[in-house]
């Protein structure tokens, strides 16, 4: 299905229609979606934003913003990238919408000169922390892409600065705003899956993850392919797993107590420093295990987060829930309802068009009826609302923070070959 953006009103209408409004009410950070929460500013005051880092993700975020910037009264005031071709890509996107934001190569100059409410940061991982802290300290609200930061210390530094400046810091884990996840999490938290024993997740691709260099000029290698070098990224851990450990923590409403793991460069032995093949186990205090792996030389299984409970299973990426015991056939359900209401009526089974030999192959049920939305748009729209309101639910940042901390601990566990727990100073 071709996914297209749904605006908030359609989205809420859709939730109300599908009965998923429960999820809306029970998810604290979505309160701002539905309620006319106290705003420090008018409900539709202009929000002035800039984007720092207009590479592939930055341009993608810009495209999303542009689909609702008029309706939401967002002004893209400025764009910043220190690599000019990428900056021009973003300028072009704006021109197509007849917008002319200022361009900058240095974000420090930009935040000094421009009148901004908020920035969106989509630079390589290693510079998330410095840029975020600088922006927060300038008094700006920040949306920063995941993973939060390159080290434990940087992650904490960002968090502490958010507390000190009282400015919004939202990390780009878009699943937090995805109706499939919201509804599924509600069911998990309501005990519909019974006792969760394991969460299994994986992300498998079959490509080398390399981007081509301009004119094959090797001097650009580390700048363009920053994901492959430890100085800038923890590879599969920060780029992919961070999303999925966030989902696991969210499902369990806990953070792990330990992690162990292993990793290797198994296939793409091309001078890269980060592993192309990893496996980790995170344990929680109630005995639940999060079993994770990621690789880039086989794509058969794609990506998934499987929540394995004693009475059911959820597979989030495909919008599916499976009960361990399938639900009653329709006629039987009628019988059960009748008995409950003291009714003695004939069992409406069969019929002229009865299907005596229909193969039953239990394929589970969809979690939500329609997935006709983009979670990335929804999260940016939420950010806009939060900016207008002047604050965001702390829960959202804590999800990003804990995902980042445990991703970093996973990296250290792999490197040291040890089972690690969270050092006290990083507990928030």
């Amino acid at each position, binding site marked *: 299905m071709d996914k297209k953006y749904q605006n908030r009103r359609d989205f809420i209408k859709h939730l109300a229609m599908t009965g998923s409004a429960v999820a809306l009410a029970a998810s604290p950070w979505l309160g701002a979606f539905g309620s006319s929460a106290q705003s420090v500013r008018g409900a539709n005051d202009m929000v002035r934003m800039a984007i720092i880092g207009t590479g592939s993700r930055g341009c993608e975020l810009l495209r999303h913003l542009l689909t609702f910037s008029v309706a939401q009264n967002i002004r893209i005031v400025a764009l910043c990238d220190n690599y000019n071709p990428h900056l021009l890509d973003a300028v072009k996107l704006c021109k197509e919408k007849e917008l002319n934001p200022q361009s900058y190569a240095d974000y420090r100059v930009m935040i000094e000169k421009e009148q901004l409410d908020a920035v969106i940061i989509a630079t390589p991982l290693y510079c998330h922390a410095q840029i975020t802290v600088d922006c927060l300290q300038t008094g700006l609200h920040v949306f920063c892409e995941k993973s939060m930061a390159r080290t434990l210390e940087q992650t904490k530094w960002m968090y502490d600065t958010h507390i000190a400046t009282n400015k919004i810091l939202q990390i780009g884990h878009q699943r937090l705003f995805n109706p499939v996840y919201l509804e599924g999490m509600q069911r998990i938290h309501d005990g519909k899956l019974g006792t969760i024993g394991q969460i299994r997740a994986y992300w498998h691709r079959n490509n080398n993850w390399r981007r081509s260099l301009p004119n094959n000029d090797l001097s650009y290698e580390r700048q363009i392919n920053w994901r492959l070098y430890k100085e800038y990224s923890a590879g599969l851990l920060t780029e992919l797993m961070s999303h999925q450990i966030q989902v696991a923590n969210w499902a369990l409403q806990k953070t792990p107590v330990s992690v162990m793991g292993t990793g290797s460069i198994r296939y793409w032995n091309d001078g890269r420093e980060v592993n192309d093949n990893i496996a980790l186990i995170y344990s929680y205090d109630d005995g639940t295990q999060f079993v994770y792996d990621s690789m880039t030389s086989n794509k058969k299984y794609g990506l998934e987060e499987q929540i394995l409970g004693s009475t059911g299973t959820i597979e989030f990426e495909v919008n599916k829930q499976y009960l361990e015991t399938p639900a009653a056939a329709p006629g039987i359900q009628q019988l*059960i309802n009748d008995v409950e209401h003291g009714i003695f009526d004939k069992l409406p*089974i069969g*019929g*002229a068009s009865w*299907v*005596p030999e*229909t193969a039953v192959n239990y394929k589970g049920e969809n979690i939500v009826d329609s997935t006709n939305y983009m979670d990335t748009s929804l999260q940016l729209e939420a950010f806009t609302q939060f900016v207008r309101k002047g604050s965001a639910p702390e829960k959202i940042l804590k999800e990003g923070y804990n995902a980042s901390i445990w991703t970093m601990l996973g990296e250290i566990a792999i490197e040291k070959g040890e089972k690690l727990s969270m050092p006290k100073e990083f507990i928030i």
Partner: protein
Amino acid sequence: MQLIRNINLYHHSIVAMNSQLDMVFWGDNQLVYNRVYNYALETLQKYELLMSRYNKESELYHLNKNGYVSTVFPGEIVYNTLEMGIEYHRLTQGYFDVTLGNVYQANKNGQPNRVNVDRDLTKRIEIDTMNRSVRFLQKNVSIDLGGIGKGIALNEIGKMIDELSLKNCFLSFGGSSVLTRGRHPHGDFWPFGLSGILDSAYLWELQNHSLSVSSSKSSDKKIAHIVNPHTYHPIQIDKSAVVQCNNAIDAEVLSTTLIASPAHLHADILQNFNIEKYLVI
């Protein structure tokens, strides 16, 4: 187990044998219900593994693959079922036939006549009752126990229910095969009716019974899925058959037979069975 307030109604489902078995019990005997459930689960899993035409591990798969090239000695259950199937062939004047698996399969693709196999059962298969062995006499012979398997499983579970002296229950296998004991919590029997037909003449009062429903067409694809074993033509006219008796296998075999055979033969065929009530519409 799903417990319904007040009445202590228990419901459980099992997906197996390409279908879903729903079991409803009521009363205060949960431990017994659990035993029936576990027994049903084991039974269905066992039959699934024995009688699947598609599972390469199954005994029937092995028989169908090797029956023409060599003499096969199936295990007790598959052998007995096959022998039973051939006896039903006799009792139904050849309108119930378990040896035409390839014809039924080809019918799903709309070409049942493409399968080259003799119309005379004795020229297709040879059963050695002394040695309990089976040999296919023609290449295209293939056993399909789909029209009998659910009845066998239900009978088996029914035996356990009676052994445990369980009084009231309603079992529905895929909606087409039903086995009941006792009565509905709010009445003297389990009332059963074809959906969409209101006439009370078409009400079945089930107590200690088996009932089976068949229709010539499947509702979704409108495929005529029952084939006349004498002509290899699928039954194209819309009709449904319901049979109530004391034996789930008889009920299942007969509901199919009543669709496959012409109406003027029904009375004759039914003479061979002890049935309570039937309907063909």
